[in-house]
């Protein structure tokens, strides 16, 4: 993304005065959710503030927790594996001769491949899709995409002041059986970072280096 565009986005959000993720009037986080669900053709998005947070939400969303096992995608890095181990989940390999069936697929976006998100998402077959947005250049950011409302609910409940807590006016009492939160983290994404990531994704593939002057970030 061009520096001018980033400047425009940051100025726009700052001018609105709304930079809090728990602010009812925030429009940036829902806007990024809409763009990601549209691009990936998934119905639900969980925005978080890092790749490891997204891996955590993808597992928790499927009720995979400490003491459980999960197959990790081939794209998982050593850091991803170390994190899954820290969560207490044992990584497994596909059974002999069986096709890979990872608990989540993993797409790592950069300015160079951001335009390919839709096709990469179309190729993904796991129940959840982790999209790492950090490489877009605005700091740690990621999302979990899914068509499963249960995954979304459990994943959001991993966040303190996640969508569920905000919807219920900050109470946690209305959980359905089995959906009560366990450990929770502040994995909320900043509206400023979300706005920049959205702009980068929206522009991906629409502007060539010849047009933009090939400026960094």
């Amino acid at each position, binding site marked *: 993304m061009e520096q001018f565009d980033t400047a425009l986005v940051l*100025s726009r959000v700052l001018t609105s*005065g*709304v*930079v809090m993720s728990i602010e009812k009037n925030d429009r940036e986080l829902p806007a990024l959710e809409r763009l990601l669900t549209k691009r990936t053709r998934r119905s639900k998005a969980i925005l978080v503030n890092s790749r490891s947070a997204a891996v955590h939400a993808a597992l928790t969303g499927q009720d995979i927790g400490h003491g459980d096992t999960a197959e990790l995608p081939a794209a998982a890095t050593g*850091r991803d594996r170390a994190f899954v181990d820290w969560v207490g989940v044992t990584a497994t390999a596909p059974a002999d001769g069986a096709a890979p069936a990872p608990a989540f697929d993993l797409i790592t976006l950069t300015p160079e491949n951001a335009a390919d998100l839709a096709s990469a998402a179309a190729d993904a077959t796991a129940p959840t899709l982790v999209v790492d947005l950090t490489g877009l250049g605005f700091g740690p950011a990621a999302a979990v995409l899914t068509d499963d409302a249960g995954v979304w609910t459990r994943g959001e409940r991993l966040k303190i002041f996640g969508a569920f807590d905000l919807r219920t006016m900050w109470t*946690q009492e209305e959980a359905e059986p089995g959906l*009560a939160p366990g450990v929770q983290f*502040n994995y909320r994404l*900043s509206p400023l970072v979300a706005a920049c990531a959205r702009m980068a994704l929206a522009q991906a593939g629409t502007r060539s280096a010849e047009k933009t002057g090939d400026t960094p970030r």
Partner: protein
Amino acid sequence: MITDFPSSPLALPDPADLTAELAEFGGAAMIPKEVRRTIFPVITKEDVFNLLLAQRSDAAKVVDGFAEEYRAYVGARRALPTASGTSSLHLALVGAGVQPGDEVIVPAFTFIATAQAVVAAKAIPVFVDIDPLTYCMSPEAAAAAITDRARALMPVHVHGLPADVPALRALADRHGLALVEDASHAHSAKIGDRVAGSFGDAAGQSLMADKNFPLGGEGGIAFFDSDEGYDRAADYLERHGIDYGMSWVAGAFGSSQLKRLPYYDAIRARNASLLAAALRETGLFTPPHVPEGHTHAYNMYRIGLDPAAVDLGDLPVWAVKEAVHELLTAEGVPAREWQNTPIPCHLPFRERSGFGNGYPFTLNPAAVRDHAPTDFPTIVAMLESTVVLCRELRSPVEWERVSRYADAFRKVAARPDAIRKLVAEREYVRPYEKAARLG
């Protein structure tokens, strides 16, 4: 264009408003609906410009630059910038040497992140009651909770008032425990000349955008008083693949805001002083207690109620509080409960599923308790007899607004008959009988 500029000014205080009919019963509200919104945080042209400049810098340098500036301001030895307050607390515990299965003694009155950070460190939060004057962790209650498995005391500088650090430090030293501060409410709070965040072996602090010192959205910072503590936390992140990194966007905004923090502090202190003077006149209301030598940061302002002072001593204080809350809200004062039950009575600590299958609670079953609110009588008494202002003393809250807040308290306190009427008509319940609120 969306703008944070106010749509209209607030009228100056008018003595005639004090004797007008209460808004609850059809009178004019002290703060009319159309001017109730206070935009927070303050965002200036310098913030915008600094963010634009930061684009041209290396992202890591922007974040590290912010962390170093703020570390120097606090006076801590080392600092680790993070994505949130919760993650900073987690790293503070790790840096202090807390291990899986250890017990960490925390106040049962705090934001839930304090206790969740303990669980994130795979330790067990042991909840204790608070001091009735400061609302911070009671050193006596903490002492009574120490076992062989205890590893740390984790006081919270609740609402911005430093806890009794000398007593807690002495207690920690006597038992070989670490002292880990939760300074998330306590930006610029002090004991003597020392700033919160620099008292303990380690500290965590939220810098999210609704705090006195706001970053661009979400952020936090962990402080350590030793290189070993810092190294332990940094190595932990690396070894376990945990990404708690702060965005350069947040860091750049923080560097810009830090230059105005002393101004923000002065505005809150001025507004708190003005409001305290008004509350003392009323009899019904009392301002927060501030021990000698402590500087309160007033992240929140908890106001006490003394019904007997206005001949309402025969009514349950929690019912008076509910009525007062209703009357103040109608006047346009955004008074809140901010917590209505002790933290161990919240769902995650009743169910205790943790990371899954009960971990880490399963590591130390002897430390785990099923709590009722009444296990913490001081907290229950406080929740039943206080109301809270949250952002309402901060810049940009101007003189006329805080003066009108003060007048609203005067107006309500002058109408015990109205309070009695509401208590008789409504079916109020105790705070902890309602669904547990996060904030």
